[in-house]
């Protein structure tokens, strides 16, 4: 019985791994497109270098919120790389609902949401190195070398878990299209939560204590702030605490998405065909 279970769960996992791999290869076919997309990170990083250099100088301090200027810029570069590497999953789901193609996707021998998440991870994995190289090169030239890279494998694990949290929230937003059809406004607002409470524009350490506490209790901080902070201040203790928090949000959001999905598919009406 046990071996049958192991066999079916392995087949289950290998199916989604194959989808992930296909998407990864699909994206890699267009390296010029990947490189062109990396221009965005150069723009943002350049603005951040100017903004925070002037701010640190104006404050006359070496450290703000326990972070030096160099650490802040490396933090912001990684935060941008995490966000710019992920696809707009909510939009893909909503598009499938709006144009009716979901009717063809739902009866395929895979779970629609796991399919979308596998595609999302496949795409993100290919985009991340390009963004890291472009952004990292600029920061290195302007600010000096990155913090200790020994813990980078742990950072990659934290980034991957953070992406899955983000995809689950994006799925919640995308599935809202079952009821509202138009989800652009929800997507914008979520993006702004990431920008602010996720620590994309400013490290949460620069917030007033009360706001930092609130932001750290929300899932947004586990997608960006957590991995980026681990990158500049690596420690096993922080990695463990971060992973526990990420797993908590993965499970909670996973349950939420499953329930929302069941309700949404019951609601679904397709016109024509």
């Amino acid at each position, binding site marked *: 019985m046990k071996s049958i279970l192991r066999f079916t769960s392995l087949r289950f996992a290998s199916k989604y791994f194959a989808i992930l791999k296909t998407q990864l290869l699909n994206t890699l076919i267009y390296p010029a497109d990947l490189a062109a997309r990396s221009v965005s990170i150069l723009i943002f990083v350049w603005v951040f270098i*100017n903004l925070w250099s002037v701010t640190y100088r104006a404050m006359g301090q070496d450290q703000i919120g326990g972070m030096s200027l160099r650490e802040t810029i490396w933090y912001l570069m990684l935060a941008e790389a995490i966000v710019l590497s992920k696809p707009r999953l909510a939009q893909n789901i909503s598009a499938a609902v709006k144009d009716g193609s979901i009717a063809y996707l739902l009866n395929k021998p895979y779970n629609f949401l796991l399919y979308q998440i596998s595609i999302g991870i496949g795409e993100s994995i290919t985009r991340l190195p390009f963004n890291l190289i472009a952004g990292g090169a600029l920061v290195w030239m302007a600010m000096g070398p990155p913090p200790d890279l020994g813990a980078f494998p742990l950072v990659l694990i934290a980034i991957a878990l953070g992406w899955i949290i983000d995809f689950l929230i994006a799925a919640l937003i995308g599935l809202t299209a079952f009821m509202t059809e138009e989800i652009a406004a929800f997507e914008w607002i979520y993006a702004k939560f990431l920008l602010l409470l996720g620590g994309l524009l400013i490290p949460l350490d620069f917030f007033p204590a009360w706001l930092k506490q609130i932001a750290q209790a929300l899932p947004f901080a586990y997608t960006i702030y957590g991995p980026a902070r681990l990158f500049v201040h690596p420690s096993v203790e922080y990695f463990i605490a971060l992973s526990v928090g990420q797993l908590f949000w993965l499970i909670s959001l996973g349950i939420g998405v499953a329930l929302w999905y069941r309700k949404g598919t019951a609601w679904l009406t397709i016109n024509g065909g």
Partner: protein
Amino acid sequence: MMKKEITFLLHLWRANLIAAMEFRVAFLSQVIGMMLNNALYFLFWIIFFDRFQNVRGWGLNEMFILFGIVAVGYGAGVFLFGNVMQLADVIATGKLDYYLSLPRPVLLHVLASRSLSSGLGDFTYGILSLLVAGVASPDAIARIILGAIFSMIVFLAFMTLINSLGFWMGNATMLAFQAGNAMLTFALYPITLFDGTGKFILFTIIPAAFMGAVPAELIRAFDWFTLAQLFFAALVLLALALFVFRRGLRRYESGSAIQIQS
């Protein structure tokens, strides 16, 4: 001739508005959603200036004015001429055929054929931001109108210019996306953050200073030199955009995609 074109433009805008009103909930969700989106973004500056007070002469009030004028200029631009964000795609996919087959000014017709509802949200938010900054006197309103018109022209001209490169490149969609992204990002940051090369770029290659910082300066304190600077920059960019689009149009070819607009 001019009157005929203005009437045509008014008819296009009316048709866009009627089309948007067909989906009233979606329209309102985009307008209100964008206002909320901008408000959430601006929280960053509130937190930033609460902690750091003043950065090279810029405080929260200056940011309200800058954000306000960029939002008004950009919002009006994409609400009235929404296709400016998709012009490269229109060129690449041969959709210009439809516009070329009609006896109307091609560029004007393409740009005004689409309206982004979210632009109205940006526009309204921008006005609110300027009101919060305390610029509400009659002469300040005149300066806001002037600044917003120039900000809009600079944005539209720059985007038309970049998108028109698609006539030579084949597909300039990604370039246009990145250029638009850069223009908006830089326009929303205080100009005093940038020195030397940075400032040079923002006044020339990516003229974001003429979309944000210079109109904001005009609103803060009227000065003939600032107005002349803005006027000259808008005029040059507009002339350049029209020139490049017209030259590009001569090179345009497609596999005949004339079809009825749905």
